[in-house]
């Protein structure tokens, strides 16, 4: 992968500029009805399950079983369900949500700072061993994180770190992909001439980084922040093995436990709508963040895809 990545990096293109010209070229192009229909039908496949989730979270248990999944039930129970979710076991859901926010926030900020500094150094300095260390970082992208989780668990448990927030946060601080993205980004975003000028003015290297480069790197940093935030937010395996007290769980593990309880059945049937509403509520912040931050997603994926 290294050779190909480097050759792709060596020939950067300007997506924004060509996109503008494309838009002009697109004007006056004929539309295809067939393609429009095919594309909208496909979009339905992606959207309908989420519509089902929303509709189901507006129903009580009775309506869940008796009314059609893609439409409202007889009563609109969304707010009652949300109340139930937050009342479940003295409000443990809010606790899970808070945990998720803290783990994801701390891990993402830490990972972004580490990845930015390392990626910047790889892009802007030459030092013995730089190629080797960067290759190792790229190779690490390929190692499945879950393969590391089991030995990490054993090491943490001998250090008595399991069942603490650190057990989830510390392993999430490593983002080899973030280093790669920041290296690619820093190469174009921070001009060498600017750094030279700052040096001539007598600024030290660290000062150049904190006062000049960081500002130029900010959009790339937001992208890495988002990626690591979502990765930690969505992580299930790591908190599942590291944590066992209910109060420390993030939403993913908490919801899965709730689902297992309701699937085990018995008198717990009333839990169905709680699980479904809990799942629905948990994705609302993500979907809002997504819609607002689209630009950054696309920058990030473009950097990885175009230049990778």
């Amino acid at each position: 992968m290294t050779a190909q990545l480097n050759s792709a990096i060596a020939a950067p293109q300007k997506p924004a500029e060509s996109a503008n010209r494309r838009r002009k070229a697109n004007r006056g192009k004929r539309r295809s009805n067939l393609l429009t229909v095919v594309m909208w039908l496909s979009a339905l496949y992606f959207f309908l399950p989420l519509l089902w989730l929303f509709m189901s979270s507006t129903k009580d248990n009775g309506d869940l079983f008796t009314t059609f999944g893609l439409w409202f039930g007889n009563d609109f129970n969304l707010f009652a369900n949300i109340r139930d979710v937050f009342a479940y076991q003295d409000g443990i859901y809010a606790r899970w949500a808070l945990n998720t926010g803290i783990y994801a926030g701390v891990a993402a900020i830490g990972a972004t700072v580490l990845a930015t500094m390392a990626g910047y150094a790889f892009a802007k300095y030459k030092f013995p061993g730089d190629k080797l260390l960067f290759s190792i970082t790229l190779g690490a992208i390929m190692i499945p994180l879950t393969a590391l989780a089991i030995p990490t668990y054993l090491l943490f448990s001998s250090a008595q770190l399991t069942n603490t927030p650190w057990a989830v946060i510390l392993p999430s601080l490593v983002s080899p992909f973030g280093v790669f993205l920041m290296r690619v980004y820093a190469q174009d975003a921070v001009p060498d001439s600017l750094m030279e000028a700052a040096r001539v003015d007598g600024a030290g290297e660290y000062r150049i980084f904190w006062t000049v480069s960081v500002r130029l790197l900010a959009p790339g940093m937001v992208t890495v922040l988002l990626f690591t935030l979502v990765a930690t937010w969505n992580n299930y395996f790591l908190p599942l093995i590291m944590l066992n007290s209910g109060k420390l769980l993030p939403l993913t593990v908490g919801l899965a436990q709730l689902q297992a309880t309701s699937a085990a059945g018995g008198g717990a049937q009333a839990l169905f709508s709680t699980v479904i509403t809990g799942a629905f509520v948990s994705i609302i912040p993500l979907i809002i963040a997504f819609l607002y931050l689209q630009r950054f997603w696309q920058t990030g994926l473009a950097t990885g895809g175009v230049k990778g």
Partner: protein
Amino acid sequence: MNKAIKRKQQLVAYGFILPFFVVFATMFIVPLAYSGYLSLFAHTLVGGLKFVAFGNYVRAFEDSAFLFGLGRTALILLIQVPIMLGFALFFALALDSGRARGSKAIRLLIFLPFAVPGVVAVLMWGYIYGQNFGLTGQIARGLGLPPTNFLSDSLVLFSIMNIITWAFVGYNMIILYAALKSIPPELHEAAEIDGASQLRLAWSVKIPMIRPAILLTVIFSIIGSFQIFNEPKLLVELSPTAIPQGFTPNFYAFNLAFVNQDVNYAAAIAFLLGFVIMIVSYVVQLSMQKKEHRS
């Protein structure tokens, strides 16, 4: 540049990479090495923990649970990954051609599942497939068909493939779409003026131009396929008999370590998994690069 300045700059660079590599070493290299070390030992009935060299690896290749897990992963790689990437490429090309109305909304809707955490996606699909109030059952009854149990022994793997496809088509589509947008427009404008059809244009101009991005999606999909865990872990609650302990290698490693308490064997499986991923990714990369040289 004089030597003293150069040295100073090198030191600064090491200062910048040091924090990352300290964490990288403790959270990545050390566990990896420890995993390798653990995998060389095994609990024996007499004498407790004993050095067995590659005994655990030999055991893995004779372990039908592990081999079936690998087999399921191979099926996913051969069936689900091509379907997912095929759709992603088709959608990316269709959106890039600008021929469909409402492209922006379509792009967003297809990408939306990527915002849904894996756990929630599996949970939701589990209920949709379910016998109780599942959507698939309702639709089947509405059409007068007998309801299908999508979580049965024979279908659960395909139901899982559907969940993964639903979740990741959009992600791959955006990677490919971004790559398509960066193709200089002159390249295909000329072809269009010459009257080349959209299909021809896609096949002979656009797809070859985005080969690196396609390679990236293939490699990420391979890594992802070997790591499947959430789906069996959550669906096993709904359909205990359809999902054995070794459903996927990753699920197997988890069960070995935390249910069977056989950490050494689990470490060997995890290590083996990393190794298989590296080899498969490398082979894919090599074969795609070869094609590039030929063409």
